[in-house]
C-alpha cells in the first residue's frame, strides 16, 4: 500500500523571492518527478495561521493544482466501500465500476466539470451530475429520476464573497432571533417579528416567553437560520463543507475531518487501502482557491448597440420584477474570509478544531478593490441574487419542477435563487442545464417568479432582446 507521506510544512527562507519568511507547501520528497500521484503537497494550516504570512498565495498555489489535478488510485481516488453521501455511508454491495456517471465517482478532477470559460467555472450539459442523497438508494445505477436529480455544474467565481455574505446574513438573522426571544421573555407575551437581512426577507418568527420558537412561518431558509448559499438547492453552508462532500462524492477522496477514525472508527472508511486521503490543509487550499476566484463582472468593450440594449434591458429587468429575487447587489461589511468558517458543524473542520482560523483578507485582492462600495463603505457584491430559496414552479410553469426528489429537507420545486453574475459564460441554463437560451430560461420560471415571467412574456420582442442583451453582458472573465 502506497501512502502519501505527510511531511511537516517547512518554513522556507526564500530571500531571493520575498523579503520575509514564507510558507510553501510541503512535498513528499521520495516521489519521483514522473509520479502519477496528484496529492503530493500539504500545508500545516495551524502553523500557517500562527505565522505572519499572508495565507492566500500559499494556499492558492496548492489549491489551483488540486482543483485541476486528475486524482488517481495512488491518491486514494475511488470509494469501493462507501457511497457519495454527505454522512459516511457504506455501500450495500460492491460497486461493479470504479467510475460511474450516476452514483459516482464521476469525475477525474474538479476542473473536469467546472471549466467554462475557465477553471472554477460552469459546465455544459455533458458535465451534469446526478444528485442523490445516497442513503436509501445508495447503489442507484439507473437514470430513472426517482433515484436522482440531474443537475448542471455551477460556476464558483465569486464564491468567497457569496460565503461571506451568507455568514453575515446568518449572524444577522440569529441576532434577530435572539432579540425576539429576549423580547418575549421580557414581555411575558408571544412576540412575532419579520426577519430581514440585507434587504432580503425570510418570513416570520414567533417567540414565546418560555424560550420556545415557532419556525413554521420561516421562508426560504432552514429552521436553524443557517443560510446555506451553495449548490442549486442552497444546502451547503460553506465552501469547506461543499468541498469535503464533493471530494468524496465525485472523486472518492475522503477528507479525514469527516471520514477519519474519530467519526467512523477507521482511517480508511472507503476501504481502498489509503488512509486519511485528504488533509485539512489540502481542503483549506481548495477552499482558498475557490474563495479567491475573481467575481464575474461586465463584459468590456461592448459595441454601442449592445451597450444601449444592455442599459435598457437592465432597467427592464428591474421593472418587470426580476430584481426582486435577482437582487443586483448585496452589501458586505467584512472582507476577511476565515477558514474554517463560523457556522460549520462536526464533519467539517470547525473553528473550535483549530488554534486559530486562517484569515484570508479578500480586500487585498485587486478584483475586490475594484468593486463598488456604498456610502457606508461596504462592498457591493454584484451577484444578482438574494441567497434565498424560492418555489420556482407551478402547474402552469412546471419546467423547474422537474425533479422528483427533495434534497436535504428542501422540496423538489424549491431552489436557491441562481446568482446571475457570469450568466453569459455559463450556458446552458436551469438547474438541469437543459435550456439553451436565456429567454427559454426566463420563460421557464413559475411559482414565486410567475408574475415576472408573465411580465417578460408580455414585453415587445425588442425589449425581451434588451433583457437578454443585459444578461449576456454579465460574464466570467475568460
Amino acid at each position, binding site marked *: 500500500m502506497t501512502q502519501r507521506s505527510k511531511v511537516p510544512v517547512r518554513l522556507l527562507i526564500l530571500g531571493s523571492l520575498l523579503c520575509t519568511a514564507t510558507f510553501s507547501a510541503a512535498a513528499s520528497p521520495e516521489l519521483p518527478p514522473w509520479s502519477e500521484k496528484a496529492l503530493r503537497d500539504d500545508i500545516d494550516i495551524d502553523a500557517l495561521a500562527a505565522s505572519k504570512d499572508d495565507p492566500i498565495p500559499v494556499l492558492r498555489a496548492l489549491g489551483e493544482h488540486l482543483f485541476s489535478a486528475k486524482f488517481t488510485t495512488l491518491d486514494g481516488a475511488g470509494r469501493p466501500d462507501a457511497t457519495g453521501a454527505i*454522512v459516511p455511508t457504506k455501500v450495500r454491495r460492491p460497486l461493479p465500476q470504479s467510475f460511474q456517471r450516476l452514483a459516482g465517482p464521476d469525475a477525474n478532477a474538479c476542473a473536469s466539470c467546472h471549466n467554462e470559460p475557465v477553471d472554477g467555472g460552469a459546465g455544459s450539459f455533458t458535465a451534469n451530475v446526478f444528485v442523490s442523497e445516497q442513503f436509501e438508494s445508495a447503489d442507484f445505477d439507473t437514470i430513472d429520476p426517482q433515484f436522482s436529480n440531474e443537475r448542471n455544474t455551477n460556476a464558483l467565481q465569486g464564491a468567497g464573497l457569496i460565503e461571506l455574505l451568507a455568514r453575515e446574513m446568518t449572524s444577522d438573522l440569529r441576532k434577530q432571533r435572539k432579540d425576539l426571544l429576549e423580547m418575549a421573555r421580557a414581555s411575558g407575551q408571544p412576540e412575532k417579528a419579520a426577519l430581514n437581512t440585507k434587504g432580503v426577507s425570510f418570513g416570520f418568527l414567533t417567540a414565546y416567553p418560555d424560550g420556545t420558537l415557532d419556525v413554521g412561518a420561516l421562508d426560504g431558509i432552514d429552521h436553524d437560520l443557517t443560510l446555506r448559499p451553495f449548490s442549486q438547492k442552497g444546502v451547503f453552508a460553506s465552501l469547506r463543507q461543499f468541498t469535503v462532500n464533493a471530494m468524496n462524492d465525485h472523486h472518492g477522496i475522503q477528507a479525514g475531518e469527516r471520514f477519519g477514525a474519530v467519526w467512523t472508527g477507521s482511517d480508511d472508511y472507503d476501504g481502498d487501502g489509503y488512509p486519511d486521503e485528504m488533509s485539512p490543509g489540502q481542503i483549506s487550499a481548495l477552499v482558498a482557491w475557490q474563495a479567491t476566484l475573481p467575481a464575474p463582472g461586465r463584459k468590456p468593450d461592448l459595441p454601442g448597440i449592445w451597450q444601449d440594449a444592455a442599459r435598457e434591458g437592465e432597467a427592464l429587468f428591474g421593472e418587470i420584477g426580476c430584481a426582486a429575487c435577482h437582487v443586483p447587489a448585496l452589501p458586505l461589511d467584512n472582507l476577511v474570509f476565515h477558514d474554517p468558517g463560523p457556522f460549520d458543524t462536526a464533519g*467539517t473542520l470547525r473553528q473550535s478544531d483549530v488554534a486559530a482560523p486562517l484569515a484570508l483578507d479578500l480586500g487585498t485582492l485587486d478584483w475586490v478593490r475594484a468593486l463598488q462600495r456604498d456610502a457606508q463603505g461596504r462592498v457591493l457584491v454584484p451577484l444578482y441574487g438574494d441567497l434565498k430559496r424560492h418555489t420556482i414552479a407551478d402547474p402552469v410553469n412546471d419546467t423547474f419542477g422537474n425533479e422528483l426528489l427533495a434534497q436535504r429537507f428542501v422540496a423538489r420545486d424549491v431552489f436557491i435563487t441562481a446568482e446571475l453574475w457570469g450568466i453569459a459564460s455559463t450556458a446552458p441554463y436551469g438547474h438541469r442545464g437543459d435550456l439553451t437560451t436565456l429567454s427559454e430560461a426566463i420563460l421557464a420560471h413559475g411559482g414565486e417568479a410567475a408574475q415576472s415571467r408573465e411580465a417578460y412574456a408580455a414585453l415587445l420582442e425588442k425589449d425581451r432582446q434588451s433583457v437578454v442583451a443585459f444578461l449576456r453582458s454579465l460574464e466570467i472573465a475568460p
Partner: protein
Amino acid sequence: MKRQGLPLAAALTAALLSTPVPAAENGAPASLAPIPRFQEEAATAGIQHSYDGAWEFFVGGGVAVFDCNGDRFPDVFLAGGKSPAQLYVNASTTSGPLKFDRSGSGLSDKQSRNVLGAYPLDFDNDDILDLVLLRLGENLLLRGRGDCRFEVANRTLGFDGGRAWTTAFSATFEAGLAYPTLAFGNYVDRSAPGSPWGTCHDNALVRPVTTGTGAVSYPEAQRLSPGYCALSMLFTDWNRSGEASLRISNDRHYYRGGQEQLWAVPPGRPPRPYRKSDGWQHLKIWGMGIASIDLDVDGFPEFALTSMGDTKLQKLDDEADETVPIYRDIAFDLGVTAHRPYRGDDLKPSTGWHSEFQDVNNDGLWDLFIAKGNVEAMPDFAAYDPDNLLLGQWTGKFVEAGEGAGIALDRRGRGAGMADFNADGLLDLIVVNRSAPVSLFRNLGRGSADAPKPLGNWLAVEIRQPRQGNIKAVGAKISVKTGNRTVVKDVQVGAGHASGQMGFIHFGLGVAERANVRVRWPDGDWSHAYRVFANGHVIIERGAEKVKLWYPE
C-alpha cells in the same frame, strides 16, 4: 418465530475483522471514539451535599434530575440518607460553568431525612413534574406546585407510603389508565426474624384510581411477592408487545433462593412473575442498577445490570422465540464487564451501582456510565473503585475512558444522572457519593474549562402529549435517523440506582447536520418524520406538523 434483524454478535464479528481497536500504553484498548474531558466543579457550582448514614444507607444515594421551575434547565434533588435531602435549582448560564442555588424543597426536616432515592414523574397530569421519594420508612409522593415548590401529597392521593426500606422505583402508564402505575422495590425487612439474611421485603405495585372529580388516587398496593431485595427496577417493553413488564434487579447478598425477576403486568389483572416454564433464566447477581438501550435497534432492548464483580449486558437470545425472555450475556464480547478497577493495582472485584446509556461525546454511539464504589469497607472488593465511562466504538464494542475523561475520583459512587446542565449540547454528570461530596462534572468536550469545545453534532428532544394524560409521553420511543443509521431511545421512568431523570432526551449525531425524528407514542401510534437540524433543542408535540425549537439564551 425467530426474530429478524442483524444479530449483534454477527455485526460485531464482522466489525472486528475489519478494524482492530488500538491498544493504549497499559495494554488496555484505546478509544478511537473521542474522549470528552470532564471537570469536577461541585464546590464552585454551589453544591455541598453528601449521602451518609449507617447500614441502611450503604445502598441508595439517588439523585433526581428534572426541571422543577419550567425553565427547561435541569435541576437536581439529592437524597441524603440520614442527612437531609436537598434541592438545588440550576442557575447555570448557557455554555458556562455550572451553577446551582440551594432551594427549600417543602419537606419538613423529618421528611427530608432517610431519603434513599428520587424519581421525577408527572403523576397527576398537571404538566408540572412531581417527585417520588424512596425512603427508609414512609415513601412520599411530592406534588410539584411550580417554581420548585412541592407538597407532600400522600394523604390527598390516598397513598400509603408504607414502612419498608425502599430502594427501587419505576412507573408506567398502563393501557386504559390515565395516570401512572407505580412500582416500589424494597430491600431487607429488618423486622423479620433472622434479618437480614433471607428476609427480603415484598415489592409493591400501586395502580391509579380515577376519582369522581377526575383526579387520581392511589388507595391500594398489590404485593409483588416474593421480593428479593430489589435495588433497581424498570418497566420495559422487552418483547415489543406494547405492554410493559417490570424487570427487577435483586441483591443476592441478602436473598435466599432468589434471582433476577421479570413480572408480567397485564392491564387490569394481577402481576405475574415469569418463571422457568416461561423461559425466564435463573440468574443470581448482586443486582444494583439497570440501564437499558436498544443497541442494535431491533426493537428488543438490551439491559446492562451492574453488580459486584462483572457487569452483565443482556441481549434477547437470537435463537429464542421472541415471546420467551431468554437472554444471553454479551458483556464480555462487547467489553463492558468492568469487573475490576481500570486504574491502580487493585485486582479485587469492583462494585457497580447506577448505570446509564448516553452519548457523552456526540459521536452517535451509545456510551455506558457506571457509578462504582465499595459498599462500605468490604475487604474482598476494591477500595479504590473509580466510576466507568465506557465509550461506544464503531466496532460495536466499548472501551473504558474514565481516566482520560477525568472522572476517576476516589469516591464511593452510588446514584447518578447525566444531563446537559448548561445547555451547551454536551452531557454533564452528577454522581452521589457515599460519605463524600457529590461529584458534579462539567463536560468540556475536547476543550478546557476556559474554552470548552464541541465534539460531534447533537440533538435534544422533548416530546409532549399536551391534551391528554401522560403529557410527558412515558412509554414513547424516539427514533432519530441520520443517513441510513437509526438510533432509538425509550422514554422511561425507573432503572439506574435510586436515580431518575426527566427532560430533554439527548442524541449524538456524529457528523450529520440533519436528522429525521419520529416518535412512537405510548399508545403505539407513530408520528410522521420531523425534519430537524443538528445542535439544537426541539420540542415535538403530538399531532403538530412541525417541531418547535427551544433556545436557552
